[in-house]
C-alpha cells in the first residue's frame, strides 16, 4: 500500500525544499536526527517511568486497597499461645511477643490487648505496643513486644472464671475518641484479632 501524500489541508502553504536548505535551524535539526529522537523519547521515558513506576515488591497487593493486618503468633515468655486456648499469667510479670503480618508494608501496626472488653462498658487496653514500618519498609512480617505486667488485676486473680483476652492489631493508630471506644481508628483502618482465655494467678509472696 502506498502512502497518501496529499496534504491534509490543501490550503496550507507549500514550502519549497530549497528554502529550507537555507535555514540554519532546519539544517542543524536535520543533521541531529538522534537529538530529535531523544527530544521526543526523553519526556516519554520520563513520563512513562514516573507515572508507572515498576512495583518490585512481591508482597504488595492491589494498589490503593488496604489489606487487613493479621496476627500470626502470640508468644509468652514460655510458649506460643494457641488461638482460643487457656493461658496462665502471673500478676505483675511477663510479656508477650506478637508476630504480625500486613501486606501493606508501609503501615505502622499498633497492638492493643484488652481484657473482658465490653462495648457497653468499654475499658482501655491493658497493654500496648507497636511495630512501625522500619525503612526500607519491606517487611510484611513484623513483631512487637508488649509488657504484660499489668494484664492481670487483683479482681482477675480473685476470679474463679477465666477472662476473655483479645490481642488486636490495628493498621491505624486507635483514636482517643470515637466508637467503639479505644478501638476506633481513622477511616480506612483495619484490624486483626486473636482471642484467648486468661487465667491470672497471684505473684509469689
Amino acid at each position, binding site marked *: 500500500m502506498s502512502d497518501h501524500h496529499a496534504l491534509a489541508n490543501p490550503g496550507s502553504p507549500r514550502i519549497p525544499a530549497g528554502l529550507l536548505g537555507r535555514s540554519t535551524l532546519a539544517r542543524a535539526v536535520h*543533521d*541531529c536526527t*538522534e*537529538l530529535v529522537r*531523544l527530544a521526543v*523519547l526523553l519526556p516519554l*521515558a520520563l513520563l*512513562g*517511568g*514516573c507515572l508507572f*513506576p*515498576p512495583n*518490585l*515488591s512481591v508482597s504488595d497487593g492491589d494498589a490503593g486497597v488496604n489489606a487487613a493486618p493479621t496476627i500470626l*503468633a502470640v*508468644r*509468652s*515468655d*514460655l*510458649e*506460643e499461645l*494457641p488461638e482460643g*486456648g*487457656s493461658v*496462665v499469667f502471673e*500478676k*505483675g*510479670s511477663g510479656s508477650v*511477643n506478637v508476630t504480625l503480618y500486613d501486606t501493606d508494608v508501609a503501615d505502622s501496626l499498633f497492638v492493643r490487648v484488652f481484657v473482658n472488653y465490653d462495648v457497653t*462498658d*468499654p*475499658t*482501655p*487496653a*491493658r*497493654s*500496648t505496643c*507497636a511495630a512501625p514500618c*522500619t525503612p*526500607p519498609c*519491606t*517487611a510484611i512480617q*513484623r*513483631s512487637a*513486644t508488649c*509488657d504484660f*505486667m*499489668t494484664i492481670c*488485676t*487483683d479482681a482477675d*486473680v480473685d476470679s*474463679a472464671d477465666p477472662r476473655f483476652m483479645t490481642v488486636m492489631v490495628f493498621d491505624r493508630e486507635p483514636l482517643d475518641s470515637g466508637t467503639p*471506644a*479505644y478501638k476506633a481508628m481513622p477511616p480506612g483502618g483495619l484490624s486483626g484479632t486473636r482471642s484467648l482465655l486468661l*487465667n491470672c*494467678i*497471684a*505473684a*509469689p*509472696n
Partner: protein
Amino acid sequence: MKTLRSILGVLALSLAATACLSVPESAKPECTKMSDCDTTNGEVCEDGVCWGNPPEGAFVAVISPPSDRNLVTKELTELVISEQGWLSSLQLERPVTVSGDVDAVCTPPAICDRGITATITITRDSHFAGGPGFKTVVSTKTNTSGATFEANLPRTRDGDAEYIMTIVPDGRGDQPSSENLSARLVPPMRVELGVPADISKVFVLGGVNLPVVDGTLVAAGGGGLSQYRVVAMGRWKVGAPPIEVSTVDYTDADGKFRLVLSDDLEGDVEIVAKSWGGTSAPTLRLGGIASDGPSIHVLQQPAMLGSKATITVPVKGKDGGGEISPVRGARVRITAQTTSSTMPGSTLATFVAEGTTNDAGVASLEVLDGQAFRASYKLEIVPPASASVGVVFDEPLEFGNQPDMLLPARVKVRGVVLDNKGEPIKDVSVTVRPSLRFAWSLADKPQAFLSAIPAATAITPSTGEFVVWVDPTITDLWGHYDLVFEPPTTGKYPARAPLWVQAEVAIGSTDTLSLPDVVLPDAAFVHGAITDPDGLPVEGAEVKVFRVNTTLALCSMVPNAPLSCPIPATLQGRGASDALGLVRVTLPR
C-alpha cells in the same frame, strides 16, 4: 556530534533512572565477602551478615515450639555458641503425656464413679534461676467414662524438679450454678509428680478425713446473711500466694456454710465471704483458721453499713497542650475496710468499687453510705498507659459530691537512643517499668498498686529521641525505673543494635529528666537451626536467650522482697524460626 549524542544519551538514561525508576530501597547487606567482617575475632560472612564473635559469659535459653506442632518447650541451661556465631542443640522434643480421670471420693452407699469437671494447672520451676519455668492449663472433658483430661509436658529427667499439678473443681462461679456442683462437693487437690514417660492416673478428690469448717454469716442486726459465696483461701507452700483451697458454698437465708479444706495445707486459712446477686455489700473475712482440723466460726457483718449510693468522680489532668481536660479511660477504685468489733478475732469487712472514666472523664461508682465505711473510703486512680498525668494512691475520699480530681503531672523522661557508632536509631521500642529495687522497697499494698500501673512505651523516630512518662513517687518513695530498649529485629539485615536495659534510672523532683545519650552496645549476630526430634526444621518456633543474674544482693537490701526473691533472668535476645527452621538472634556485646 557523536560526542554530543553520547552525552545526551547518558543524560537521558541518568534522568530516567533517577527520576522515574522509583525502585524501593532495599536493605543492604553488611558484608559480601569475608574480609568485610571481623574475621580475627571469628566473624564469618554469610547471607550478607557478619555472624559470630559472640559476647563472653554463660547464656541460657528457652526454645518454644509453634502451638500447632506436637512439641514442647525446652530449656537449655547451657547454650553453646560457637565463635562463628552458630547456636547448637536447638532441637525441640516431643512431649510426654499426663492424662487421667478426675473423680470424687466415693463413700458407699453414695453413688460412685462421679466424674468431677475441673481445671488443671500444671507448673514446674525453671531449670535456671529466674527462668520462666513451665505453666499450662487444661480442662477436663466429660464423656461416658466421666471427666478426663490430657496434658502435654516436657519429660522429667534426672535432677529435674517435679511438676505441681493443681486440680480445681469447676462450678466456682460468683453465683451458684445448678449445672455444675463439682466445687461444692470436693476441694481442690495438689499433686507433685514427675513425668518421665506417658502416665495415666485416676485423681480422686475429697476424702472423709479432710478438715471441715462450719460457720454462719450473721447480719449486724442478727439473722443469717444470704447470697454470699464462701470459700477458704490458703496455701500449700510457705511464700506461695493465697489461693482457694476449699469447697465453695453459697449461703441461704440462715447464713450457714460448710467448707471442706484441701489436704496438706501450710499454715492457717482465711474464710472469705463475697456477696452476689447485685447487692452492694462488703466482703467478710476471717483469718487465723486452723487448716488441719475441724472448726466452727461466726462471721459477723459490721453495723451501720448504710445503703447503696452513687459517687461520681470527675477526673481531670493537664493534656499535652497544658490545658486542664477530662481524662478518659482512667481506672478508678474506691476501697474501705472496717471490723465488726474491736475484739481480737473479729470479722474484717472490706469494700471495693471499681469503674472506668467515660469520655467526659467521669467514673460512677456504687458505694455504701453508712457510718461504718463513710470515714474510711480511699481512692486510687490509674490513668491509661503512656498518659502524661499520674496516679492517685490511697487518697482519703470525702463522702458526697466530688470536686474535680486533678491528677498530678508525671515526670517526662527523655533521651536519644544511639547505636555504638553514635548514630540515632529509628523504631526502637522504649518501655519503662519500675525497677525491682523500687517495687520491693514498697509495702505490700503500694507494691500491688505499683504493679497495676501500665508500662509507658514509646517508639523512636529517625532522630532516636524518646519521651516516656513515669510517676515520680509512690507513698513518698522516689521512683527508680528500668528502661528497656528493643531495636527492630525484623528484616533481612537487622540493625546491629541489641535489646538493652538501662537499669535503675532515678527520678528526681524536676518536671523533666533528660538522660544522657543512651548508647546501645555493639551487637553480635548469632544464628542456629531449630529442629524437631527427627532433625527436620521447625518453622515458627522461638528461641529466647537469657543471662542468669548471679547477684542476689538486692534480696537482702530491700525490705519487702518476696520470700522466694524471684529475680528474673535478663533477656538478651529473641528470634523466631523461618521456613527452614533458621533463627537469628542479636546479642549485646
